[in-house]
């Protein structure tokens, strides 16, 4: 199971320093690695929306951060995303544990999960879904390239096909 290491390797290559997060089981796979790595600085948030502001502040001050969160976090962040990084043109790379899709056990996650791609499309946010180990590096790198090129948010979804489903 290499994907968490691959993502962390690419984040490092792109000088991402700050991992701002609301935890979920998928995100924890990355957090386990970055917590012990002195190249990263990890910030726990109370709500995903906060992370939109924090990543923007980090970027405005010249350093790179990502927002790591579960699917439900997009729901908590929509107005912040629409009114801050999009109009101000600030890159906000979002890594999202994709709940409410393939193999979901929890019915209350499904509506948000099924709406997630449409929400991202409605906001014109490019998104890429990690499904197979051999695609992780190129999709992670491509997702970072487009967020910094467009100076706008982009999303990387970690699917249950890759990470396994929750019991």
């Amino acid at each position, binding site marked *: 199971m290499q994907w968490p290491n691959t993502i962390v390797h690419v984040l490092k290559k792109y000088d991402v320093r700050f991992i701002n997060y609301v935890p979920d089981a998928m995100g924890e796979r990355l957090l386990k690695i970055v917590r012990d790595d002195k190249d990263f600085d990890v910030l726990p948030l109370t709500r995903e929306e906060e992370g*939109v502001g924090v990543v923007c502040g980090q970027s*405005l*001050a010249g350093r790179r951060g990502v927002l790591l969160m579960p699917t439900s976090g997009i729901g908590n962040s929509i107005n912040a995303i629409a*009114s801050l990084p999009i109009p101000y043109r600030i890159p906000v790379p979002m890594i999202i544990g994709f709940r409410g899709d393939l193999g979901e056990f929890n019915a209350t996650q499904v509506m948000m999960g099924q709406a997630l791609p449409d929400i991202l499309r409605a906001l014109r946010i490019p998104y890429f879904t990690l499904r197979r180990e051999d695609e992780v590096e190129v999709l992670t790198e491509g997702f970072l390239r487009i967020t*910094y090129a467009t100076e706008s948010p982009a999303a990387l979804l970690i699917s249950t096909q890759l990470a396994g489903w929750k019991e």
Partner: protein
Amino acid sequence: MMNMLEASQALVRRLTDDDLVVAGLGNPKYALFEASDRARNFYVWNAMGMTASIGLGMAMARPDKRVVILQGDGCLLMNLGALATEAWRKPRNLVHICWDNRMYELTGQQPTATAGPADLARIAEGAGLSKVERVETLPAFEAAVDRALSEEGPWFIHALVDSRRGKLRPPKSPTFIKHRFMTDLGVEH
């Protein structure tokens, strides 16, 4: 009771060109602009609640710079969790000022929860911030700012202000605000 514009002027007189300031939606950014339109003022249009989080991100990214957050009571009440995050992270270079006029002034002076029993200074203390000042007069505000600028933070200054509104408006282009700020700081994405 002090006025937000007079207090913003007193604050700006004490800052250097090197300091970063983020001013939140509504009157806080209007008052900051009227007090002094500096390149390192980041004016937040809309994005209610985000002001404190932007300031925290700046303070984390640049521990060598002082960061000042200016935010109204309505904006802070929308994202009280930011106080808990700030207190836990404890950035030494952060000064968080909340102008409390106890209303959503621009939308028709509807009362906020601080018109009721909510006390933002006590909420800040409860969140874990230890350097908290509550001030109601201009001399008390100036003394609090002098302390906050000379001692390690994070500081939280809860400033009770009247509801007089400023006349001037800052630049409206988000990308102009961003580019001016980042260019002056000498950074890029």
